[in-house]
């Protein structure tokens, strides 16, 4: 199987996010960037499929030069090749733009694949747009938010999380699959893998060398403001024994907050 995985460099989930109201952007100073957590499940799934069925895993990241760090992490986990789709733009919050670039890479430079794996969303932008958009641009079936994946010859069966249960999807390959937590337990990099990953050459494809128009490379989103969520008013700690406090809280929820 020829498997492509798409990963993104994002601030880690421990980060305290600071904003700059003037630039209408997140202040990236001091943030620690990592491989987006859901992408780790996608990389792991690709490695497991390769181990079971043979083939090759190539990982791509659309982003700045610094995205090479997460590509090397993927190499250290065991992927065969890594490609940087170099993009000078800052976070555009526009899945359409990213999907157009990725689809252009796949149409012009990397046409041979059986499976495209993504995380279900990047942590941060939280858009969950790119996998489905790439699928539409390439005319492929999609299985998003997947917690179980089985591939048999040119068919796939996936379980995907929906409200209060799961949907079972059946699809033909090639296909787009996006990973949800629970799909697998990602492995750690090995020391040997880390050493080998350091030496590995990472080819670079420039996002603006793919024949896309200037309009296609623009964000379709006009940011008008960035804000912090309004701070909650400090509430009260209810006095008394746990039993008294419990009775009091039910009474307050009923009569004061009126939510039960």
């Amino acid at each position, binding site marked *: 199987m020829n498997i492509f995985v798409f990963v993104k460099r994002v601030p880690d989930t421990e*980060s305290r996010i600071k904003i700059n109201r003037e630039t209408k952007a*997140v202040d990236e100073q001091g943030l620690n960037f990592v491989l987006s957590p859901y992408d780790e499940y996608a990389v792991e799934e690709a490695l497991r499929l390769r181990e079971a069925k043979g083939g090759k895993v190539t990982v791509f990241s659309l982003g700045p030069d610094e995205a090479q760090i997460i590509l090397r992490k993927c190499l250290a986990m065991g992927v065969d090749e890594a490609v940087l789709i170099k993009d000078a733009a800052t976070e555009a919050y526009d899945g*359409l733009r990213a999907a157009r670039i990725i689809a252009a890479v796949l149409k012009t430079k990397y046409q041979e694949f059986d499976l495209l794996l993504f995380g279900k969303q990047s942590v941060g932008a939280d858009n969950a747009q790119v996998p489905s958009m790439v699928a539409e641009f390439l005319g492929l*079936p*999609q299985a998003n938010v997947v917690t179980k994946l089985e591939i048999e010859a040119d068919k796939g069966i996936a379980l995907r999380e929906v409200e209060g249960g799961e949907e079972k999807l059946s699809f033909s390959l090639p296909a787009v699959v996006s990973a949800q*937590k629970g799909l697998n337990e990602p492995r750690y990099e090995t020391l040997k893998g880390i050493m080998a990953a350091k030496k590995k050459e990472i080819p670079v494809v420039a996002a603006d060398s793919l024949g896309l128009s200037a309009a296609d490379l623009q*964000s379709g*989103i006009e940011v008008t403001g960035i804000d912090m969520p309004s701070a909650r008013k400090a509430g009260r700690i209810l006095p008394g024994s746990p039993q008294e406090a419990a009775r009091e809280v039910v009474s307050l929820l009923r009569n004061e907050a009126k939510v039960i």
Partner: protein
Amino acid sequence: MILVYIETRQGKIKKSSLEALSEAKRRAAELATEVAAVLTGTVPAELGPEVSVYGAGRVYVLKNPALDAYSAESHGRALADLVAGIKPQAVFLSATARGKDLAPRLAARLGVSLASDVTRVGVQDKKLEFTRPIFAGKALLSFTLKTSPGIVTLRPNVFPLEQPGTVAGEVVTQDAAVGEAEIKGRVVELLAEKGGEIDVTEAEVVVSGGRGMKAPENFALLKELAAAIPRSAVGASRSAVDSGWIGHAHQVGQTGKTVSPNLYMAFGISGAIQHLAGMSSSKVIVAVNKDPEAPIFKLVDYGIVGDLFEVIPVLKDELKKLQDR
């Protein structure tokens, strides 16, 4: 016109689709335009009028056997064709599992950008402006879309439901031009969780447990507590999920789900930043924790410092009394 996609599951309308329709009605009034709704596949005949009383002057029902089982390809194609025909200025969907799967497919087909999981819709200079949480709610981004029509998914449980009116609109049934042959993937089965549980994103009350629950069997206490509260669901912190005490579908926080129920009750959850991001937009928050310094107490409405195992049985009894009244 604002077009609203109405999602059905097993012949029933999803409440969150009606929330999206209600918001469309409010914004359309500001924009001095009308609202239409769209249903797909074979649906009970009464659904059209049922939807229209929420404010849709016209309800389209797109028929084709290829739309009966859900497939993003067929639904995206059918909706894109309708949009090309009736040219709405915006299309609203609820940001449910289905909406999140379908909206980007539709947007890509139309070649337009998508506003995902928005929590506020406003009108600025006759244009829709959106606000959505980023970093699971650690910051809020406001923006407009440069492309048209604007495809928008609205977060469930955030937008208030309008009172249904009494005048039903027009129901227009159309055949959708979707061929079986072009569908390469589809849903073949729905596997519901035992007992028809409500998802944490849709529940009006979420009772959540963290490391302080101490053992997987203690989540039974939370399930019993949830059973005493209508429209409630059991949530969990990442550490409870990673310990294998409860399935990841219940996880609230930055690598789980973001929820905004009327009431969020946190038991034995200290309040790691990733967790707070996922629940701090809840309307009312209650926390029970032994540690008076736990960060979660900084954002609660009501806090109880004490042993959750002493608190839960009393809460359950008191809540049951309310139900029995």
